[in-house]
């Protein structure tokens, strides 16, 4: 907004367009205190802003709103206050009202001690100052994480589990839809708030929550760069990225070199500002010598390992090149190519040896109407198949993607194979259908990857020693 030279209150508070979200214009009620024509007086601005944005007719002492917030909230929430006080926001004069100030008439605005405020601070609000970051987040896969109602996982959580588990479980990571409740003191429904899920659907139509990674009220960059931050959600039986990272050489090195990792530096370029180890952020988001930081988390991923059968990302070669530029900060080109050959090998192995045949058998079972109960997940074999790809198959592929050997094999392919041969195939045979049985028999007899099943150990060992068995997989070490 334009500030008139005397800094007097703007009589008509205006909304400032921020970056479009998926084609829609988003309006933020916040204005950046540091990006005004007086920005060289960075500490002046919030005062003026407090006066012009928030002050209502009843304001007893214009220009002191932020201070009045602090007078009570410092006492009432000393932890929150201390986080803010020690934060970059605190050091740069970005105060309570700069983020929580609202306009009378905003959907979630309420009057509090003579000022109009809102509890919820959305990416559109943060984007009033952090424009590039907000735009990247809105375009990212993270921003879509809340739109899961149609997914198989959400079906499972609601039908098999129940709504409270979906709220406190799924939506706490994925983000829920924040709904309004006029009877609540802060006008937010208790079922939908608090929520700092990364794809939160906000009343102002923006998506996500910056505090998913930059937790309130420190909004620390160091925290977002720490692996534990991602580990709030990226862990567990279905995608144990945090555990894999801890197992990997990268994780080992990080925990040994944390103190030297310069996590709260303004500029954080791997190889220049730190070199001990990469964190999740280093590879997926942060700046390298060759590329800038991004808040669009998928931009360096070549595979999507989420579905039952792996897929290449759209424009995957460019994305792989971006990741390889990160690797190059510490690794030579042959090392990088070798790593990707090994990673692709595991992905292809899982896909071709287990995921594709299991998927075909499952499709045949459905096609022939062999399931006893109609609802999805009401039959045992569906759970077995689900765990095969959703848990074990992902563990194996993520293990290979992040150089975690134990997750690649013992928690990964080993579990996949055990499930496939001794749970999934027997469960399919139990249905007693000739077509299904014929398909399984053909697979075990004719597929060179599976034909070991009917042979004797000595000849298999001989094939291993000679390298014949390995050659079956020879074409897998490429994307």
């Amino acid at each position, binding site marked *: 907004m334009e500030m008139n*030279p*005397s*800094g007097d209150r703007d009589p008509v508070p205006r909304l400032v367009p921020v970056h479009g979200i998926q084609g829609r214009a988003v309006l933020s009620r916040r204005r950046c205190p540091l990006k005004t024509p007086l920005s060289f*007086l960075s*500490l*002046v601005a*919030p*005062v003026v802003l*407090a006066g012009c944005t928030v002050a209502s007719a009843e304001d*007893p*002492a*214009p*220009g*002191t*709103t*932020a*201070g*009045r917030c*602090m*007078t*009570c909230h*410092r*006492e009432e929430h000393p932890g929150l206050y201390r986080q*803010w*006080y020690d934060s970059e926001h*605190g*050091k740069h*004069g970005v*105060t309570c009202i700069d983020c929580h100030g609202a306009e009378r008439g905003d959907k979630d605005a309420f009057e509090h*001690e003579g000022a109009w405020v809102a509890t919820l601070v959305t990416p559109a609000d943060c984007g009033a100052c952090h424009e590039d970051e907000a735009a990247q987040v809105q375009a990212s896969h993270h921003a879509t994480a809340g739109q899961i109602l149609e997914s198989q996982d959400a079906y499972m959580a609601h039908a098999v589990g129940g709504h409270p588990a979906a709220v406190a479980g799924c939506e706490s990571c994925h983000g829920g839809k924040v709904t309004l409740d006029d009877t609540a003191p802060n006008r937010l429904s208790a079922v939908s708030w608090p929520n700092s899920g990364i794809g939160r659907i906000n009343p102002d139509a923006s998506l996500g929550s910056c505090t998913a990674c930059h937790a309130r009220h420190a909004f620390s960059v160091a925290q977002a760069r720490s692996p534990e931050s991602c580990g709030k959600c990226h862990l567990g039986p279905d995608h144990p990225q945090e555990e894999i990272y801890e197992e990997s050489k990268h994780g080992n090195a990080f925990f040994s070199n944390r103190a030297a990792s310069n996590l709260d530096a303004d500029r954080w370029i791997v190889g220049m500002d730190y070199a001990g180890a990469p964190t999740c952020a280093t590879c997926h988001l942060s700046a390298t010598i060759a590329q800038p930081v991004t808040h669009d988390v998928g931009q360096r991923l070549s595979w999507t390992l989420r579905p039952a059968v792996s897929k290449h990302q759209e424009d995957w070669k460019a994305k792989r090149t971006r990741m390889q530029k990160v690797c190059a900060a510490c690794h030579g080109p042959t090392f990088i190519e070798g790593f990707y050959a090994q990673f692709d090998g595991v992905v292809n192995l899982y896909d071709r040896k287990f995921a594709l045949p299991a998927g075909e058998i499952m499709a045949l079972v459905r096609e022939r109407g062999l399931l006893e109960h109609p609802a999805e997940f009401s039959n045992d074999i569906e759970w077995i198949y689900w765990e095969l790809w959703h848990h074990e198959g992902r563990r194996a592929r993520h293990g290979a993607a992040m150089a975690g050997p134990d997750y690649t094999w013992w928690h990964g392919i080993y579990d996949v194979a055990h499930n496939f041969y001794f749970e999934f195939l027997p469960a399919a045979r139990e249905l007693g259908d000739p077509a299904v049985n014929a398909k399984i028999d053909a697979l075990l007899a004719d597929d060179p990857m599976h034909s070991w099943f009917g042979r004797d150990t000595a000849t298999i060992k001989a094939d291993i020693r000679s390298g014949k068995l390995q050659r079956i997989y020879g074409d897998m070490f490429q994307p």
Partner: protein
Amino acid sequence: MLRTFARFVRGVSADAVGRIGVALTTSSFLVFGFIQVLMLLGLVTNAYVGLVIYLTLPALFVLGLLLVPLGWLRLKRRTGLGHRELLSARFETDMLAGRFLGSRLFLTVAGLTLVNLTFLGVGSARMLHFMDTPVFCGTACHSVMGPEWATYQASPHAHVPCVACHVGEGMGALIDSKINGAWQVVSLSFDLYERPIPTPVHQLHPARETCETCHWPDKFYGERVLGRTRFDLDDASSRRYTTLAMKVGSGREGIHWHVAAGNAVRYASVDDEREQILFTEVLQPDGSWRRYDNRRLDGPDPPAEALRTLDCVDCHNRATHVYASPEALVDEALARGEIDPSIPEIKRTALAALTGAYPGSGGADRGIERDLHGHYQRHHAADYPALAPRLDAAVDVLQAAHRRYVHPRMNVGWDPYPDHLGHRGDTGCARCHHRDMVDQDGVAVSHECTQCHHILAWESPGPFQYLLPLEEGDPEMELHRSLQAEFVGVVPRLQTETRSVGTLQDSVE
């Protein structure tokens, strides 16, 4: 005369019991008189002597008097003789001979009875007087009253006798207190008392009759500056100042508005404990009551007689038996220099030593010394020889504080009772003044920080931090600006800010 007395004494000493009675009565009388003379001459000043002469000696005196007739009756039963025959046997005839005013024996008995009554009268009066002295209350039941006695002696009311507040004026109050005291003797004898003893909030006499004899509410206090120095737990024990201008006031404004003449505030609390307030009511000019309900607490209203009208002790509930927090004690000792604040890490280490869990009597004295010296021997070995004498001084201060405030026998540790002056968490003012205490329209009772005090410094590096000019780059600049404006009435500006300094009124336009 003396001979007559000797013959009388021989006569009434009917048997061993009677002789003990005579000896007790006579000796306690003589000792009482002797000590009383010494006290009058100023030769005996020990306060504990009062316990002996005003409680023990009159009791022995009366016991002796009771034993004398008991001996007589035992003799009578043993010999099977009548009173008259026994009298003839034990006293010479001239003692028994009838005279105009009665026999000599009768006159002796009458005379001695008069002396006894006088003695008991004077003794009782002295005893009652003695029982009104703090030293009686504080030391007669030493083990029970120890914590209260220790904190009383260190309190602002150390020169006000216990009975001035706990008994009050008038015969009714005196009788109440003696009945209550009799029960206390029983509970002490049979170990029936609670540890720690509960605060006698319901037995206290009304503040109108006690506190207000000295502190009358019409006195206008205005604003009082309250300064507190705290020391951080960092290595340097950095000094932090909190300065509040307390709006004590009276009458129409300030905190003492609550009890000013013509105003009335009453409330009901959970279990009548005065800690969790169910609702509160304020008397309106038209005689009605405006009610605020606590949204955090549900349940039916207590009976009307459980409503309590606010007086001094609802907030000043620890005006005398002040149990200082360990942190406050360490801060005060550091501020006064009794503990040297330049010793590295001293706030942290002193607080840790003071609040350690120490076993048994004397355990704390040893524990505090070992804790403090041990820390510096281990972690500051090079500086330890130079620090040792300063540590000794700190140890003395901490040991004294521990002895005063921690009484394991009575289960009195640190912070045993809530203190309702000010607000810590949900205590004190915050019992009523919080956002969930709302009237019918949902409007909360006022609970702004500056309602009761201006804030001139708040854990700040200087004692009047917020009266200094604004400082660029200070995260608290906005807080500073707001608090200075609240106190001074003018919104302060940075030098670089374009707006001229004006009053609040000016800046509204």
